[in-house]
C-alpha cells in the first residue's frame, strides 16, 4: 500500500455498479473510501467530517451533483470536490467551476488520471489548511497582545468557525 494514497474519499454516484467497482479499485490502491448512492446520503456522510476529497457524479436523481457540490463547499471549508459526468457540456463545466469544483472529469475516464487528480486535490487541500493554520497562528499571536483572556477566547471561536 502506498502511504501517499492515505486519502479519505467520499465517492458519490447513483450507478451502484460503477460506485462499487471504483471504490474497490481505490481501496486496493490504499485509499480510504466511503460511498453514497445519492446526494442526500453524501451530504449526511460528509456531515460526520473527515473527508479530504469528494468525487461526485453530476447527474443524479433527487439532489443532483451540482447541489451536493454547493452544499459541501459551504459546509466544509477544506474539502476538495471532483465532479464526474457522462454528459459533459461547457455550461455544466463552467457552473461546477464557479461553485468551486477542483476538477471536472468525463466518464469513462482513465483510472490513473483519477488517481492523479485525487492526489492533486489532496495536496491543494493540505496547502490551503497549512496557509489557514499559519494565518491563524499569526492572528493568535496578534490577539495575545493586549486582549483579556475572555476576549482571546471569543476571537479564537471566530477563527475556528468553518474549519470542519
Amino acid at each position: 500500500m502506498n502511504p501517499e494514497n492515505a486519502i479519505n474519499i467520499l465517492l458519490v454516484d447513483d450507478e451502484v455498479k460503477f460506485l462499487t467497482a471504483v471504490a474497490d479499485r481505490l481501496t486496493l490502491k490504499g485509499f480510504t473510501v466511503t460511498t453514497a448512492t445519492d446526494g442526500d446520503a453524501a451530504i449526511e456522510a460528509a456531515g460526520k467530517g473527515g473527508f479530504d476529497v469528494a468525487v461526485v457524479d453530476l447527474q443524479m436523481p433527487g439532489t443532483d451533483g451540482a447541489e451536493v457540490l454547493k452544499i459541501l463547499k459551504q459546509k466544509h471549508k477544506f474539502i476538495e470536490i471532483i465532479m464526474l459526468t457522462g454528459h459533459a457540456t461547457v455550461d455544466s463545466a463552467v457552473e461546477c467551476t464557479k461553485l468551486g469544483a477542483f476538477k471536472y472529469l468525463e466518464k469513462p475516464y482513465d483510472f490513473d488520471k483519477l488517481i492523479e487528480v485525487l492526489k492533486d486535490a489532496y495536496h491543494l487541500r493540505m496547502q490551503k489548511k497549512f496557509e489557514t493554520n499559519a494565518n491563524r497562528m499569526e492572528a493568535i499571536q496578534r490577539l495575545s497582545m493586549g486582549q483579556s483572556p475572555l476576549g482571546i477566547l471569543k476571537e479564537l471561536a471566530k477563527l475556528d468557525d468553518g474549519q470542519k
Partner: protein
Amino acid sequence: MDVPATGNDVKGGGVPMDNVKEWFGYDSLAFFGKVNASISHELKNVMAIISETTGLLGDLSEMARGGTPLDPDMLTSSTESIIEEIQRGFTIIRQMNRFSHSVDTPVVSVDLMEILDLVRNLSGYLSFAGKISLHAIDGVTPMATTCPFILQAVIYQAVVCSFQNTGPGTKLELSILSQNNSTWRILFDGFCPKEFDVFPDDRIKRMAASIGVSIHSDREANRLEIGVPVSMEGLAAQPGAPEMPAEEDSLRNRP
C-alpha cells in the same frame, strides 16, 4: 391543418412531402438532439462501469502476480457485472435504433402502443424520470396514420415536463382510449398539476397542431389528454377502426 387528400408527391396519409419536410424544422431537431444526448449519457455510464470493472480485474491479476490470493467471488461478480452491462448497452442501442428510424417515413400507419413504449424507454434515461405504466386496450391495436416522430416528441415532452417536477419516485399511468371513430385519446394519469400552467408551450403546440394532435388538461383528475387523429386525412374514419365507446363511458370504465 389543411391536408390535401390526394396528389402525386404524397407520402402515406395523403400528406404532401414538402409539408412533412417543413415539420422537421428546428423544434424537431432540438428534440432529436435532446433524446440522443440522454442516450449517449446512458451509454457512457455503461462504458464507465465496464471500464472500471475490467480495470478492477486487471488490478486483481496484478496483485495475484505479486502473491496475493485471488478472491473467486470477486472475479465472478465482476464478470457478471460486465455481462449485465453489455446486455444493458445492447438494449439502449436497440431503443436508439428504434428512435433513429422513426424519421424514416414521415407519415405512416403506426401502433400507438409502440410509440408509448418507445417514449417510456427513452424517458427512462433521464436521471429525474419516474416510472411509467402502459395500459393497452384489450383486443384492440390502436393504429393511427400519423407522423410518429412528431407524436413521440409531443408525448416525450409531456412526460419530461411532468417528471421534472415530480421526480424519480413518482409514477405516470399512460393509457389509450378511443373517443370516437376518428380519434384516439392518450391519457396521462398522475400528471404533475404544476405543469398544467406551462405545458404545452408554444413549441409543443406548434408540433402538435402540425399533425392534428390536440392537448387537453383535467386539473381535478391530474390528467393530461392527448388526442391523436386516427388519420391525418381530415380526421376521417379509417377502415377497420374499432367501434368506439362514448367519451364519458370510456372514462368511467377506467380502472
